C-alpha cells in the first residue's frame, strides 16, 4: 500500500457504482423529540470536488454528517455514500475517512497507539500508521500520550486516523478549529492535492473565511434547512461573494 495517490483506487473498495454520486443525501430529516435538527435536506457530491458545508453553530451540519456516517439513524430520508448506507460498506475505512470531533482520543494512549488500534480494526498494516504520522507531521510526538497534545496536534491526529485507509472521500467537521495559520495553510494545500488526485472532500465550518479560499462549491444550511447549493463560480457569476450570499441566506429570518 503506497502513501500517496490516496484517491486513485477507483471504487473497488467501496463496491458502489463508479458512475453515481460519491454522497447522495435525499430528503433527509432528523428529529430529536420535537426539535428538528435536519429538515428535508437533499444534496449530492461528485468526485474530485471540495465542498464546504457552511452554516451557523447548531444549523444541522454535524447531525447531517453523523447520519451520513452511520452514527445516527435518520428519522426520514436516506444518506448514502457510494450508493450504500455507511454501515453496509465493505471496507469503510478504505472508502471514507472522517473526523467528527477534535478530541476523540483516550488521553492516556499515545498518538501512535490510537492509530494502531484503528489500523488493526481496519485490517491495515502498522506501516500505514507511520506513513500517516509522517503525512500530518506528528512523528516526533507519536509516542507521547494524547493528553499532552495541543488542539492543533489533536486535529492532525484525527486527520491521520481518517487517512489511514487511503479513502476516496474525506468528511471533516470543523477541521480548522485550533489550527495555527501555518496549519490552516497546510490543511488547505493538503485538501487541494487530495481533490486534485480525484478525492472528494466535504468540509464543514461555521467560519466562512476559513474555507472561502479552499472550496469549489458550497452548501449553506441553517435551522436544519439547506438554503443554497452552488459552486463558487456560480456565485461569482451572479456577482455575489460567498460572504454576501452566506449572510443574506443565514440572516434572512432575523430581519
Amino acid at each position, binding site marked *: 500500500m503506497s502513501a500517496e495517490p490516496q484517491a486513485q483506487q477507483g471504487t473497488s473498495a467501496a463496491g458502489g457504482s463508479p458512475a453515481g454520486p460519491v454522497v447522495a443525501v435525499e430528503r433527509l430529516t432528523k428529529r430529536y423529540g420535537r426539535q428538528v435538527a435536519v429538515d428535508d435536506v437533499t444534496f449530492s457530491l461528485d468526485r474530485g470536488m471540495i465542498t464546504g458545508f457552511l452554516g451557523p453553530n447548531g444549523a444541522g451540519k454535524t447531525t447531517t454528517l453523523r447520519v451520513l456516517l452511520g452514527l445516527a439513524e435518520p428519522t426520514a430520508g436516506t444518506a448514502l455514500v457510494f450508493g450504500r448506507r455507511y454501515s453496509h460498506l465493505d471496507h469503510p475505512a478504505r472508502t471514507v475517512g472522517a473526523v467528527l470531533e477534535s*478530541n476523540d482520543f*483516550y488521553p492516556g494512549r499515545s498518538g501512535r497507539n490510537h492509530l494502531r488500534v484503528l489500523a488493526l*480494526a481496519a485490517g491495515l498494516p502498522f506501516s500505514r500508521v507511520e506513513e500517516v504520522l509522517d503525512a500530518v507531521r506528528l512523528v516526533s510526538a507519536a509516542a507521547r500520550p494524547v493528553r499532552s497534545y495541543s488542539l492543533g496536534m489533536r486535529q492532525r491526529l484525527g486527520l491521520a486516523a481518517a487517512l489511514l485507509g487511503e479513502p476516496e472521500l474525506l468528511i471533516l467537521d470543523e477541521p480548522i478549529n485550533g489550527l495555527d495559520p501555518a496549519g490552516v495553510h497546510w490543511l488547505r494545500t493538503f485538501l487541494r492535492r487530495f481533490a486534485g488526485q480525484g478525492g472528494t472532500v466535504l468540509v464543514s465550518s461555521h467560519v466562512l473565511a476559513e474555507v472561502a479560499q479552499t472550496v469549489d462549491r458550497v452548501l449553506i444550511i441553517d435551522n436544519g434547512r439547506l438554503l443554497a447549493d452552488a459552486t463558487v463560480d456560480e456565485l461569482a457569476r451572479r456577482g455575489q461573494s460567498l460572504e454576501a450570499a452566506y449572510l443574506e441566506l443565514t440572516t434572512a429570518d432575523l430581519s
Partner: protein
Amino acid sequence: MKAQLRSELYKLRSTWTVASVVAAMLALVTLAVLLHGFGLSASRLTSLPDQRGVFTDVGVNLGVLFAGLLGALAITSEIRSGTIRPTLLVTPRRGLVIAAKAVTILAAGFVAGVISAGAAAGAGGAALASRGLTIRLGAGDYAQLILGGGAAAAMWALIGLGLGAVVRAQVPAIVALFAWLLFVENIIGGDLPSVNRFAPGALAQALAGQQRSGTLHTPAVAALLLALYAALAVVAGRTATTRRDVG
C-alpha cells in the same frame, strides 16, 4: 471479527487502565485477607468451610467486582473519551464491536479473577500458617477456588460490559456495580438467603466452592446460572448499542 479482536486486545494493552485496576485489586485483596487472617479469632478459622469462607469472601468477591469494573470500563471509557466514534467509523457493525469486546474482556476478567482468588488463598494461607493454624484446603479446593473464581470473574466482566453498554455513563455504571455487590446482595443475603442464592454475586461464590445458607451448593448449576446472567447482559448491551444513536 479477527481484526476487531486484535484491535480490542491492543486497546487493553495500550493504556495503564488494566494494570492499575489489577494492581488496586491485588492491594485490596491482600490487605483484606490479612486483616481477616490475623484479626478473626482462631476458633473461627479452623474448619475447612471457615477458611474457604474467608478466602472466597475476599478473593472471589473482590475479583468479580474488579472484573465487572474492567468490563464496564471497556465500553464506558470509549463513550466518555469519544473514541467510540472512530471505533464505529472503522467498524460500523456495532454488534461486532460488542462481540469483540466481550471476548477480550472475558479473558481479562478470567485473569483478574485468578489473580484475586490466588492472592487471597496465598496471603490468607500465609497468615493462618503464621498463627500455627492447619490449612484445611486440599488441592481440589484450591483448584475450585482459583479456577472457579476466575470463571466467575470472567462472567462478571461480561455483566459489567453489558451494564456499561446500557447505562453508557461511566460513573453511574461503576456505582451500580459496587452498590449491587457490596450492599444490595449483603442485604438480601441477610434477609432472604433463599433468594440470594440466585443473585449473581452469590452464584460467583458458589462457583468457587463457598457453601453456606445464602449460596447454591451445586457449582455446576451456579456456573450455568451465572453464564445466563452474563449472556443476558451482553445481549442487552448489544441491543442498546445497536439501536441508539451515538452522541
